């Protein structure tokens, strides 16, 4: 068997979500004593993203001839790859649980008739060619233990549940050029890309997210959150009530039906912490909550809590960070003067 892993590219690099998928694929491959074969949709003569070897890919299938993103054509190419793979049973195809990962593997599942387990957090071989998996339901609020017995297994990886870890030993990353025979029908739906109008930094990949909820009180109330996010090199995210109130657009929503975030720090201000909100922020490494109600779920489930009104705490915090930055600059100047 082989564990194929679709590696989405973000410019010339492997996307963060796909690094998590590669990590997951490598763990599964190791437990089945086999290797990981990465699949990228890019001309084989272009320089290989170094992450593929670093994350342990023994082989890299570079799919050429599909210009841009066409989900059904990508699914068709994977189906051909699976079809042409050695006839040993139990091949696995893994992709990140992103919009693209889900839809490409769903196309692959529809083309091949194979089942697809979405948002897996663990998988291990069980019996002849079967897998035991653990997957998320309710966006991670529940876990499902399941068996997957099929000629080949299709899995997407819950990207907030698996941290990216480079391999102890880099893979050989031997490149194989692939030219799938996609039909016109496979290419009917393809993405035309244009830059997003507002907000450069992405909520999904931000290192710091400053969250605002009902406690912010109004659209104007976000000024200190935005200022703080700027100081910390982060972005602002919001809870569902904020978008329902029309204070901020839905694109900023963190949660089950919004964006799932994986920052180093989530600073949740005036957010009580509905269960659907936790589904979006549980992947944060550290959570600090600021809330007037010390018994709010967000406050009890955070790592650190400040009891108080965000409109009192944030201005004081911003002032302290400014003073600290200024202090740092002054210190640097003093050091330079002395030198």
């Amino acid at each position, binding site marked *: 068997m082989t564990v194929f892993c679709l590696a989405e590219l973000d410019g010339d690099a492997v996307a963060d979500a796909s690094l998590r998928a590669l990590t997951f694929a490598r763990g599964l491959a190791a437990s089945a004593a086999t290797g990981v074969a990465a699949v990228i949709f890019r001309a084989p003569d272009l320089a290989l993203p170094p992450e593929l070897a670093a994350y342990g890919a023994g082989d890299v299938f570079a799919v050429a001839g599909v210009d841009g993103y066409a989900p059904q054509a990508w699914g068709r190419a994977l189906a051909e790859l699976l079809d042409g793979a050695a006839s040993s049973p139990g091949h696995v195809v893994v992709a990140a649980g992103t919009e693209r990962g889900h839809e490409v593997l769903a196309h692959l599942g529809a083309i091949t008739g194979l089942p697809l387990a979405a948002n897996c957090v663990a998988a291990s071989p069980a019996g002849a060619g079967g897998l035991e998996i653990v997957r998320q339901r*309710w966006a991670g609020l529940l876990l499902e233990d*399941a068996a997957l017995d099929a000629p080949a297994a299709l899995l997407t990886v819950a990207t907030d549940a698996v941290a990216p870890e480079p391999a102890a030993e880099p893979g050989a990353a031997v490149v194989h050029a692939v030219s799938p025979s996609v039909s016109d029908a496979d290419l009917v739906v393809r993405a035309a890309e244009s830059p997003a109008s507002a907000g450069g930094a992405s909520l999904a990949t931000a290192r710091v997210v400053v969250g605002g909820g009902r406690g912010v009180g109004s659209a104007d109330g976000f000024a200190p959150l935005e200022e703080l996010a700027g100081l910390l090199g982060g972005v602002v995210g919001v809870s569902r009530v904020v978008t329902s109130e029309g204070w901020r657009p839905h694109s900023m929503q963190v949660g089950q*039906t919004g964006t799932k975030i994986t920052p180093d720090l989530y600073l949740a201000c005036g957010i009580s912490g509905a269960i659907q909100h936790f589904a979006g922020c549980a992947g944060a490494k550290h959570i600090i909550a600021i809330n007037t109600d010390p018994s709010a779920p967000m406050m009890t489930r955070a790592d650190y809590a400040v009891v*108080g009104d965000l409109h009192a705490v944030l201005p004081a915090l911003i002032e302290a960070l400014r003073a600290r930055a200024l202090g740092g600059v002054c210190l640097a100047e003093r050091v330079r003067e002395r030198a």
Partner: protein
Amino acid sequence: MEILVCVKRVPTVGGVLTLTADERAIDTKTSGFTISPHEECAVEEAVRLVERFGGSVTVASLGPVAAEEQLRACLALGASAAVLLETADGVETGPIATAAALHALAAAGSFDLVLLGNEASDTGDYQVGIRLAHLLGRPAATGIKAISVSGSSLSASRTYRGVVETFTLPLPCVVTVKEGINLPRYPSLPGRLRAKRASIARVPVAGSGPVTDVLMTRLRVPAAPRKQATVLGRGAEAVPALVSVLAEIGVLS
């Protein structure tokens, strides 16, 4: 435009999720039921398209008889017909069988557009729309946050990693949408009265024989990952402690 919208009855989850004794379902003794926010938006989008271009909205749900409650809620929002693809109580239907049952219904009508939520909020399978599209032999787009229709083509877009992706699909097609594509209306009083009286077609879904799909063995509520929070203080007085924590975490340059 003739539009079919597919919705799913799911428990309303609030503070805590608890499971039934056999660990195969959420205990719904004290909860209500609803459809996912994505699906509410799918119904709203369909109603808006019909208000603009004419036609009608049919809403369908695969589930137990009790799912008529959700179908009536959709009728109150402006759908004009509802079909229940009836399954036995307490039986979970996997994504492959769900797509097959929806296909039987969708293929029997002449729908220009089939709308679904991007994923059901309970099982989160992320595939029923695409499997249905393949069975119908129609193009599909998923995760869509904006739709516009002109003539016989539909333009669907979403933002992916800071880039707007726009897909142009010929009608008929299948589109799955996400919350945020619109702000759903509240049902009007006449709408609610009409929904209450409306008749809902029931189509029994026969067990389609063995289907190879992901086989759930049991559900678990993950252990709460967070310990009791360390309280840094009250109000602005907590700021020095807060700054130390930020430095410790490594988010201060």
